[in-house]
């Protein structure tokens, strides 16, 4: 089992979700994040003082999947989020040791979906 973490542009959440649904991945968790990557920030100014904003708003996805779903998931995210412009985001994959469904107490591969 793998845990996939992806950072995408906020406005890409809906297309990514649609791509995931197409690939039959229906479960996910989403949080807000700010990040800095290759994308440069911008400047705000307030009462004459300069504010450098280099932590940009991003959406963080967390998706736990069984091994066979890793590829479709990654592909779906890329399909939905890629524009070719800097700031498109990153996907990280880590290993998952165990998974429980709280409602039933199920564990492992069957609990994930």
């Amino acid at each position, binding site marked *: 089992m793998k845990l996939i973490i992806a950072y995408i542009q*906020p406005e890409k959440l809906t297309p990514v979700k649609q791509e995931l649904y197409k690939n039959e991945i229906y479960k996910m968790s989403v949080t*807000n994040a700010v990040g800095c990557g290759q994308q440069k920030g911008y400047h*705000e*100014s307030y009462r004459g003082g300069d504010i450098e904003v280099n932590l940009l708003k991003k*959406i963080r996805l967390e998706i736990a999947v069984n091994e066979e779903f890793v590829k479709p998931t990654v592909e779906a995210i890329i399909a939905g989020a890629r524009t070719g412009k800097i700031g498109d985001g990153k996907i990280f994959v880590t290993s998952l040791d165990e998974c429980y469904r709280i409602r039933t107490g199920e564990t492992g591969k069957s609990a994930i979906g």
Partner: protein
Amino acid sequence: MKAFGFGVLGISCLFLFAGAEVSAEEAKPVITDEMFTINNLWLLISTFLIFIMHLGFASLESGLTRAKNTVNILFKNTSIVALGILTYALVGFSLMYPGTDFTGAFFGFHGFGLNPPADGMGISYNGGNSTYWTDFIFQGMFAATAATIVSGAVAERIKLHSFLIFSAIYVALVYPIVGMWGWGGGWLAEKGFHDFAGSTFVHSVGGWAALAGIIVLGPRLGKYVNGKNKPIPGHSLPLAAIGMFLLWFGWYGFNGGSVLNADPAMVSLVFVTTSLGAASGIFTAILISWLCQKKPDLSMVLNGSLAGLVAITAGADCVTPLEAIYIGGIAGVIVVLAVLLIDNKLHLDDPVGATSVHLICGIWGTLAVGIWGVGADGSPFAIMPQLIGVISAGIFCFCCALVIFFVIKLTLGLRVSEEEEIRGLDIGEHGMEAYAGFQIFITQ
């Protein structure tokens, strides 16, 4: 019939008090200093009430749009008040009330700036209703509201400077020219057209420009996807509610002050019709929204109250309280259906419903005068003059607005870049955010 009606109203007010032994002899001047002071004071009170409507608009519009564009909307509304008052002092007042030389005309101009006549501060200036300064500032506060109406409709996508230029032109020229037709003694006044406090001359005038704006600009990104309406909810309904209440509050000056003096019978009638119009607009909007949308939608109900207010504005002085309930109630129904139609069917993207509230209900209210309104002399108003007024003002305003918007579009550009629209105009146009320190994430 505002400034033009001064004389008439002054006389009607005398008439009302005829039986009340104002003075020992009928020959003496009938407006006393005291009455002059009261009348004048009431117009000044109305002035500050109308002023606070600008905060009402600012709150309503920022509440019904997204947090990322809030600074921009507040900025526009703050600027408009200033532009409105300043341009009205420069040309507007003079264009709108050019004086008796232009009675029945389409256009008149009395010269730049403010030029109080010799008796401008005395009783004789305006039949004891107000001084010249009062006259100016009361009318000047009205002026800016027309531009503010546009602000909400074109929100979240228009370039700041383009909007400011549009507003300055519209409020300096278009608003007073149309207004002069009726209130300045122009050709519509001659035709017997009655628009008490501006269902047409303020609200529709603003509404037509709003319509032109949203046509030229197009919808916000992501509003209509594959022909489907994707609602973009406002970011703060408390702000929107504050806006509605302040608008209603200010409306007591907007309508009440349009009596142009403190005549007890008239002003109190206007307070009653205004209140009942708004209340009844809320009532029917709740019913229709509950029916059409299954769950009652607060934003619609806020619109419902404004719809009732806009509709009663044309006839607040000449309909009965019961008729005010009808007028407001019908407006409450109209506005909900209009929003559903304009947004869901016509796919014209008006974030705050300005066209539905101000344009559609402004028209309805103006026509309603032709249905129920009865003049001071007891004879009912006719529907034809009302229709002529609605159509002529509509054509003129809509065309002017379209032309101005197009010229700006071709020269300065009208719409912000896609990237800026996604990130928000607050960062794009102002380099700042409305809610620093709060996490605001919008995924559309």
